[in-house]
C-alpha cells in the first residue's frame, strides 16, 4: 500500500520526462534551415564588413584630421558608453551558449543601427547620406537575419533592446542627448569623436560576428550533437 504513491510518482515523473523529450524540437543546430540561416548571416557580416571599410574611410576623410589618421587612437569619452562594445574575455566568449551568442549580436546591431540612423540624418553631404542610408538598410537585413536564425533554432525572438531600456526614438535634434551630454548641442569635435567610435565599434562587431557565426556554423555539423545543452527557452 505504501509503495503505490511512490510508484505512481515515479511513473508520473518518467512520463513527464518522456513528454518533455518528445516536446523538445528535434532540430536545434542540425536543422538544415538553421544551417542555411547561419551561413546567410555569416555571408552578410562579411558583406557589411567590406562595405563599411570603404564607407568609413570615406567618411573619416570627410571629417578630416585627426580622424583620418590611421594611427589615431583617442581615449574613450564617457558620452559613447551606450554603444555596445564587442570586447570580451576569450574564455567567456568561447563559453557563450548559442542563444546568448545570438542575443548579444542582435542587441548590439539594434543599438548600433539606431545610432547610425541618427548619425546619417545629421549628415550634411547628400551623397554620404545616401551611402549610409543604403548601409543602414543592409544592417537592418543583418538584424532580421539574426532573428531568423534564432527562430529556426527554436529560440523566441529577443525583445527590442531600445524599447527595453526606454531610450527615446528617432529624433533629429536630440540625437546626441542619448550620449548623455548637456542640454545644449554637443561640440562639433565631440560629435565627430562619437561618429568615429560608432564606426569603429561597428567594424569590430562585424569582425566578431563573423567569428560568432563561424562558431555556430561549426557547431551545426552533425557530429557535434549540441542538443544536450540547448533546450528552447520557455516563458
Amino acid at each position: 500500500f505504501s509503495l503505490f504513491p511512490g510508484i505512481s510518482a515515479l511513473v508520473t515523473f518518467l512520463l513527464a520526462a518522456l513528454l518533455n523529450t518528445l516536446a523538445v524540437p528535434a532540430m536545434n543546430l542540425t536543422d538544415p534551415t538553421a544551417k542555411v540561416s547561419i551561413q546567410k548571416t555569416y555571408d552578410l557580416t562579411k558583406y557589411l564588413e567590406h562595405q563599411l571599410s570603404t564607407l568609413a574611410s570615406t567618411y573619416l576623410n570627410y571629417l578630416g584630421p585627426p580622424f583620418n589618421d590611421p594611427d589615431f587612437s583617442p581615449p574613450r569619452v564617457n558620452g559613447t558608453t551606450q554603444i555596445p562594445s564587442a570586447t570580451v574575455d576569450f574564455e567567456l566568449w568561447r563559453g557563450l551558449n548559442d542563444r546568448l551568442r545570438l542575443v548579444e549580436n542582435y542587441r548590439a546591431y539594434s543599438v548600433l543601427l539606431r545610432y547610425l540612423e541618427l548619425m546619417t540624418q545629421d549628415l550634411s553631404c547628400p551623397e554620404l547620406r545616401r551611402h549610409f542610408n543604403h548601409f543602414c538598410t543592409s544592417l537592418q537585413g543583418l538584424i532580421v537575419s539574426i532573428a531568423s536564425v534564432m527562430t529556426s533554432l527554436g529560440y523566441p525572438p529577443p525583445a527590442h533592446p531600445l524599447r527595453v531600456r526606454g531610450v527615446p526614438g528617432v529624433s533629429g535634434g536630440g540625437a546626441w542627448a542619448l550620449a548623455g551630454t548637456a542640454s545644449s548641442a554637443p561640440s562639433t569635435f565631440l560629435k565627430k569623436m562619437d561618429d568615429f567610435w560608432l564606426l569603429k565599434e561597428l567594424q569590430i562587431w562585424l569582425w566578431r560576428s563573423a567569428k560568432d557565426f563561424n562558431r555556430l556554423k561549426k557547431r551545426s555539423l552533425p557530429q557535434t550533437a549540441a542538443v544536450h545543452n540547448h533546450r528552447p527557452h520557455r516563458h
Partner: protein
Amino acid sequence: MNFYCKCSNLCSLPPSLSSSSGVRIQYERIGSDVTMQCGTLGSDASITWKVNGSDVDTSVLEGPNLILRNVTLSYNGLYSCFEDSSGDLQDQISLRIGSPPREPVVTCRSNTYPKGFYCTWYLPFPTYIPNDFELTALQNTKEIECQRDAVHKNKCHLKFYQMFSSLKYKVTVTAKNALGKSSATITFDEFSIVKPDPPEKVTAKPIPDNPRRLEVAWQTPSSWPEPDTFPLKFFLRYRPLILDKWQHVELSDTNSHTITDACTGKEYIIQVAAKDNDIGTWSDWSVPIHATPWMEELKPPTNENQPPLITTTTSSSSVPPQSPSYQVSATTRNSATTIPRTVSLLLGITIFLFI
C-alpha cells in the same frame, strides 16, 4: 658591467676600486675629440701613455692628458698611463668608439591568435657598442607586461587580455647605450597583426594511373592555438619547375587538394600559405616541395636492372646462335612470360580502382 669611480677630494693615489680586471671602459662617439685622463693625477704630473702596449706619439699629449681628435673605430684599444718617476701603472682605460642608437625598427605579430602576440626589433644602423632595449606596451592607458624571449634577445611576448578590442595597441621600443638613446612607437589594431605560421608537413603524392594529378596535403601550423574556433583558410600555389607562372587555388575547410591539371611528366614545385578565415594577413609560404605526377612505365614492371625487353626479344628473334640452344629457349621463355605479367598487373590495378 664595469664600474669606475673618481676621487674628487683629498686624493693622493687613484682609487683602486674597479672591475676585476682593473680596467675602466670609456665610450666615445665616432668623429668626436676625446680627452683621456690619467686617473686623478694633477696637471703637473709627468706621465707616459701607451696604447695596447705601444708608445704614443708625444704630439697628442696636452700635459698629462692624451688628446685624440676625430676618432674612428681604429682608435679602439687599451690605453695605459704610467707615472714617470715611479714607473707605476696609474690607470687603464679601454676606449670604445661607437654611436648613439638611431631609431629602432619594431614589428609586432600574432601567430597565436587569440592567445597573444610578440614584438621584435632591430637597429638599422650599427652602434659598435653594447645596446640595451626596453619595450613598453599600452592599450589606451593600461600598460601590458611583456616577457622577454629566452632565446632571442630582441623579442618580447605579450598576451591579449581581451578579444575584439576597439582600442589600439601602442608599443614603444627604446634602444639605449652609453652614448644616448632613441625610441620608436608603433600603433595597431588587434586584428591587423594576425599572421599565422606557414602550414606544416606539406606533402605531394602522385596518384597511380593519373598522369595529370597530384594529391597535396598539409597540416595547420602547430603554433595556431585554436584551429576549431578560429579556422584557417589556405592558399596553394604550384608550377612546373621549368616555368615561371604559378597556378593558384584558395581553399577553406580542408587540409588537402588534388591538382588535376598538372603537365604530364613534369616536376612540380608546390607551396601552401595560411590565413585566418576573417582577419589578418597571409602567412609566409611553406617550404617548397617537389613532386612529379605518375607516369606510365614504358618497360615491364619487373626487375629494373634487367636489360630492356626489346633487346631480349631481338636477340631471341634473330638467328639463334648454334651453341647455346638452352640460352635461347630461356630468353624466349622470359619474353613469353613477361608480357602476360604486364597485362595481369594492369588488370589488377584496374580492378583495384573499380572496387
